[in-house]
């Protein structure tokens, strides 16, 4: 690359660099400083407290709960959303017509407000809803959907899967559309038809889509807020207590902004580390199947 091209590149990139510096870099350094203070955002006076906020966070039951709950959500959400979106993408891909219409239709839940859909879900699973009345009358099942530490996260995971399945299906769909017909023809000659073709040809060929969807889905789990905030408030017994709930509660409810920032920093470290591990695992798997 010649020097002129490099300069033009820097010039064109500069608006974004400046934007990032102002809205990300400066706040990041400010947050790093804040995490070592006991400031509550409104008091004119505050002190630096060294590592105290990080130590408190390390021993806090609610922070530990947020850590484990995230992986619990991941265990429920990631397989459901990948299976669901792949299934949806395969259906749309094989539609004879109106693929675009269906793809957009399934994408719509992604645009729905988290608060609105949480309120709808709350209504659907409320004690006196038709669903629960049917379960009680017909089967004798009196289910406490949001009061059970197992069911409450499952409800939230399913709700989020409903929201994201259409979006991720679009990614899989673009992957499916990009598989050359010749690959399928060659597989057919080798006797791979039906389910065998899906398992041995389609799925390995979709590796880039799997990679993207998995990383997006894993990253998403570290940012859950609206659904547990509206549905459960983090309960029962911290079963749906997420990082974002903890940060919000500390910074804006209890006015512990310094401590909340420390938790946010720990959250970002855990997020980066988790995504790094997932990336490495996926890349290793991809490498074994010819995706370098």
């Amino acid at each position, binding site marked *: 690359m010649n*020097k002129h091209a490099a300069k033009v590149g*820097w010039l064109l990139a500069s608006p974004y*660099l400046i934007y990032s510096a102002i809205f990300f870099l*400066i706040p990041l350094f400010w947050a790093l400083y804040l995490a070592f203070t006991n400031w*509550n*955002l*409104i*008091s004119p006076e505050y002190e630096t407290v060294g590592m105290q906020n990080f130590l408190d966070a390390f021993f806090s039951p609610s922070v530990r709960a947020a850590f484990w709950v995230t992986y619990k959500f991941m265990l429920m959400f990631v397989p459901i959303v990948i299976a669901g979106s792949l299934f949806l993408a395969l259906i749309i891909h094989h539609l004879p017509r109106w693929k675009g219409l269906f793809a957009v239709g399934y994408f719509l839940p992604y645009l729905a407000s988290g608060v609105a859909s949480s309120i709808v879900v709350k209504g659907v699973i409320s004690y006196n809803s038709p669903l629960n009345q049917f379960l009680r009358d017909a089967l004798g099942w009196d289910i406490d959907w949001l*009061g059970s530490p197992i069911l409450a996260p499952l409800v939230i995971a399913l709700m989020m899967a409903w929201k994201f399945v259409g979006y991720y299906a679009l990614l899989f769909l673009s992957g499916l559309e990009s598989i050359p017909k010749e690959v399928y023809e060659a597989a057919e000659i080798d006797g791979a038809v039906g389910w065998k073709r899906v398992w041995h040809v389609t799925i390995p060929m979709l590796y880039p889509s799997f990679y993207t969807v998995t990383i997006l889905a894993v990253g998403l789990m570290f940012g859950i807020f609206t659904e547990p905030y509206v549905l459960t*408030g983090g309960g029962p017994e911290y079963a749906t207590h997420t990082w974002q709930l903890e940060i919000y509660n500390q910074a804006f409810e209890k006015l512990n902004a310094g401590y909340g920032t420390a938790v946010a920093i720990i959250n970002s470290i855990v997020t980066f580390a988790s995504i790094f591990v997932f990336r490495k695992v996926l890349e290793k798997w991809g490498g074994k199947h010819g995706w370098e």
Partner: protein
Amino acid sequence: MKKRKWFKLASLLLAAAVAGTGCQGQTGNEQGQKKEGSTVQIDFWAAPNPTQQAFWKKMADRYMEEHQNVKIKVSPMPESPSSEAGIQSAIAAGNAPVISENISRGFAAQLADSRAIVPLDQFEGFDDLIGKRQMKSTISTWKFADGHQYVLPIYSNAMLFGWRIDILKELGYNAPPKTYSEVMEVGKKLKEKYPNKFLWARADLVKPTWWARWFDFFMIYNAASNGTHFIDGNKLSADRDAGVKTLQFFADLSKNQLVLTKETKDPFESGTSVMSDLGPWTFPYWAEKFPEMKFNEKYVLSMPPVPDGMNPSQAKTFADTKGLVIYASATKEQQQAAFDFVKWVYSDPQNDLEWLKETNLPPARDDLSTNEAFVSYFAQNPQLKPYAENIPNAIPPMDNAKMVELQELIGKEALNPVVKGEKTPEKAWEDMEKAINGVLK
């Protein structure tokens, strides 16, 4: 050489962008403080709902007609994601308004603790304002531990229990129960006749959500303790005997399967439960969604039940109440101008009547149920009268900066485990006391 030129250009752009951002903030800040000639500008943040904004806009317009030297800009307070968080962010960014409404006593305690708001009793004419608005008794419970008044209560919802009188009549009662044993008796008869109905449906009873305690624990505790402060300054001053009785009441409700702790949609309206904590904000919702909910036909209102042996007519309850504060970041001139505006608004009961008509929220006045100005309104809206009558019997939230943590502990250590049957009331109270003292020390 050329490299340096490009570096300079990039640095210049960065500096311009940063300076631009900084200037923007400063301009916003200055806007609130700018004096145009002798005009004082006031930013007034109203609650983020259309009715309250409309009221304050109207008041500001009228005041500005009479006072040409004051310019009041009424705007909704930001909710990102809550109005408290919006105020916090504004203070941190140096963009706080001069005055705002929608402040609870608990949040005011947090603001006062950080010296973000000023004591209102130090303004000239404060006593005059309290006298003119007839709120001496109501505001007495608002005094902070340091002896100052930081919030001027605008409205006060003396929280009441609604009872489905149509169902009570089916059970043979013409009035709601007033004591714990009467409540249990009603519950027993209800279960005999309708095994699938409950006395009270409240999922929050098993959640530690801090603000939920206002509408369950504090309603019952204030009634049982005759309004004894739960926290005084930085000390737990709760009436232990009343507290244990309160928890025992919840334990008995739970043991007899009279409370439903699963999420339920409109349980009181659908008749799934026969009692419910009710604020006056419910009535506009009912008028729209449940027009069949008629006062004295479908439901009646009553103060919280009291322990056996106590006089129910002297019961106290929780006051869901919010008010006005003036921010310390404003100039002295702006603070005084804001206070004068407030004094002008509340010197005429017709303005309180307008507020009541617009918002359905009872003005925090001692004379609300007796003042001639409000008589015809309450005659047309009889369901609001019990709220007006009980304003002097309603206790506002605690004035401690750690209110959120303290109320979370009431749930976690006491109420939630008692309702779940995991602790006895005595053990729960003991654990709660220990945990609260740990936070207060």
